[in-house]
């Protein structure tokens, strides 16, 4: 469970995120969308504890991220769009390393199934520098999934993956959600969001523009009825110059 309340983040005088509130329950997949510079990455960074918010609160599985960061971080996993790996560790060693960080006693038993799921078994002994871009992304995902987080934060998770990898990744996200993980997925790939997400959060200029199931969002805006997600997105973010153009 993720509960975000009045999240605000300023960089100097610039408000990257303003008064953002939402919650994601176990098993839900929330799609975080918005145009470039909308504040998606800043939001994910705040949620994962990388940067502290200027104001507001974030609760991860009941733990306040500001007051109980270790407990909150122990329950979440953040997978950035650019895989950040250690060049001197092999694939398998990355997983052992993460296992110890998060205290996973049965790490050895989890490694092989996870590597199989992400098609990395043959590369288990390779250094991260020897992997292709897509394989690096898979390894970063494997590291993120190893400790079976209750909250999964994904920033453009399909970047660099081949079609098979994309299909597998979609299955992985959905299976984790079915197991009760609360997932937030930030992506510009609207068809992916439409396919995977049970809820949609549209932000622009750091503000919430729309939140809810796609059907609910459309129900509140009858003129969007019958349109695809792309058109809905354009209308909501003002690119379509419709009546739903956000006001700053």
């Amino acid at each position: 469970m993720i509960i975000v309340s009045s999240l605000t983040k300023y960089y100097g005088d610039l408000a990257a995120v303003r008064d953002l509130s939402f919650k994601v329950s176990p098993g839900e997949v929330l799609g975080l969308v918005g145009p470039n510079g909308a504040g998606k990455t800043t939001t994910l960074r705040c949620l994962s504890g990388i940067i502290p918010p200027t104001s507001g609160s974030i609760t991860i599985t009941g733990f306040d991220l500001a007051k109980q960061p270790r407990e909150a971080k122990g329950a979440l996993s953040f997978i950035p769009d650019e895989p950040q790996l250690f060049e001197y560790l092999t694939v398998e060693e990355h997983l052992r390393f993460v296992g110890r960080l998060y205290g996973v006693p049965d790490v050895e038993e989890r490694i092989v199934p996870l590597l199989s799921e992400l098609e990395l078994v043959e590369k288990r002994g390779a250094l991260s520098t020897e992997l292709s871009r897509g394989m690096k992304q898979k390894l970063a995902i494997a590291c993120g999934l190893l400790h079976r987080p209750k909250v999964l934060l994904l920033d453009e998770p399909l970047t660099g993956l081949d079609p098979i990898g994309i299909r597998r990744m979609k299955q992985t996200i959905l299976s984790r959600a079915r197991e009760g993980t609360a997932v937030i997925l930030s992506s510009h790939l609207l068809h992916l969001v439409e396919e995977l997400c049970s809820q949609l959060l549209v932000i622009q200029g750091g503000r919430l523009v729309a939140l809810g199931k796609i059907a609910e969002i459309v129900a509140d805006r009858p003129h969007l009825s019958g349109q695809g997600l792309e058109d809905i997105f354009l209308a909501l973010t003002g690119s379509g110059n419709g009546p739903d153009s956000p006001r700053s």
Partner: protein
Amino acid sequence: MIGIFWYYLSCTVRNRTAHQLRRLSNPRYAVALLIGVGYFWLVIGRGLVRGDPDVSSQARADIGLMAQMVFTLFFAASIAKWWLFGGSRLALAFTPAEVQFLFPAPVARSQLILFKLLRSQFVALFSAGLLALWMSAGRGLAFPMRMISLWILFSTLGLHQLGATLVHESVTSAGGGRLAWRRNGLPIAIVVAAIAGVAWTLFGAREELRAAVQNQSLIHTLDAVLHRPIPRAALFPIHILFAPLRAGGVGEWFMATLPALALMIAHYPWVLWSDVAFEDAALDATAKRVARLAALRRRGAVQPVTGKKVSRAAFRLSPTGRPEVAIVWKNLTAFSRTLRTQTFVLLIVLLALVYVVATFAAGSADKARMVIGAVSLAWGGLLAVAGPMWIRNDLRQDLPQLEILRVWPLRGASIVAAELTASTIVLTVMQFAALLVGFLMFRGVPSETFTPAVRGWLAVFAVIFLPVLNAMAMTIHNGAALLFPAWVKLGSERPGGIEATGQGILTTVATSLTLAVMLIPPLLVGTAGAWVGSLALGRGGAALAVGAAAAAVVTGVEVGFLLRQLGVVFERTDPSAAGIGAGG
């Protein structure tokens, strides 16, 4: 094409400078700069190091002569290494953006090399200026003349390294065929002949050198031997480059500068010609060339050896226990995988060389042992100062991935402490090894001052104090990276090349000064502890050990305090605002 390169480089320098100046709006950077400027003003502007009046002019001349000899031999050894084993690949390194924009563009490879030369001049000028400022604090040439002399020296050596690396790479690329070896064979033959000539002359002068050791006139005798016809011819180019720095007046400097300048200018067409010859020999398609150079660029940074079987991890990591251990394990494993057999072979060869030279010079194996012991002890001492700059498998390596580090379920102070533990362990082990060699070499050598008991207590002192001293030094270096990420090289990339001396000087001065200040309280408490110890246990090694223990405790407390503070900084640092890691 030069116009485009100049546009890119001048814009880069201008914008980078403006960016650095904007950083001064951050009080942290502003205060650090003020302290730095104040230091240079006090030390150089006010002439606090304009020479110790107690040091005689003869002693000063001896020190100057020795420094010149050391640097001459160091540069000669470097040149020999570039030809025999290839130069640093940093000499061929381009930034990722340069590769992306310049390599696919219709730019000839010779023009790329020209660009590389042009870019290195900015760094060489900065280093020359800083070093000249430093040296001007002493006596001799005025600042501008020193700066020009040093710039010629750095530029020429940088050019030579680039040329040697290009030739060496062309041989590697051509698979070592006859054509390639013909191109590389002549310079290698010259280098081997020069080494043999110098070694033969030194061997012939062994009796003189041995006598000079007894008479304590080794520096002058060695200088005289190195100026005999064969070594003089072998070291002739280096002597030419050093001559402007040795000049006593403007006229002499001018006359010495002309040949040095000519040598530098002569390198330009040679480096470009090497490149053209390489192209002729390789006859490769553009795509292949780009791929090869991209690979060279990647290898510019320190990389683990790939394509071979990966060596084992530092130790077996248990899945449960303190999570900080995982970070130590990761960093120790990273260090072990950057070690190369070549390093060990070089070390053994150097030690053997020292032993042989010392045996000839001293005339007995016992004295040779003492020389090796002294070298080992000096190496251990040098490691205390330079080690924290060389061993960087800590936050300095990992800070570009700060985003990931911040997600780990650990307190900031714990992460910082765990990150620098591996570096501290590696440095301490290396120091202990050097001290152990020194200790063993001096075993059985009689001395009134260093009796076996005193030596034993000194060893106890080292065992107690060195680990915390190293932890302190590593904390300072990692703290500098965390506090001033814009001023510290992060990641696996190292500031490389002779021309990057300036940055090294600044880092050394800043961190050494901080360490010196931080060591004042331990020194005071340690002295007091030794005094109290002497009252209780009598004068001697036991009192020293008490002092060391007291100093170690205070240093440990300081390290703990610093780590706590750095932990807070770690938790508050915004990766994108600090310019670390991936933006977004």
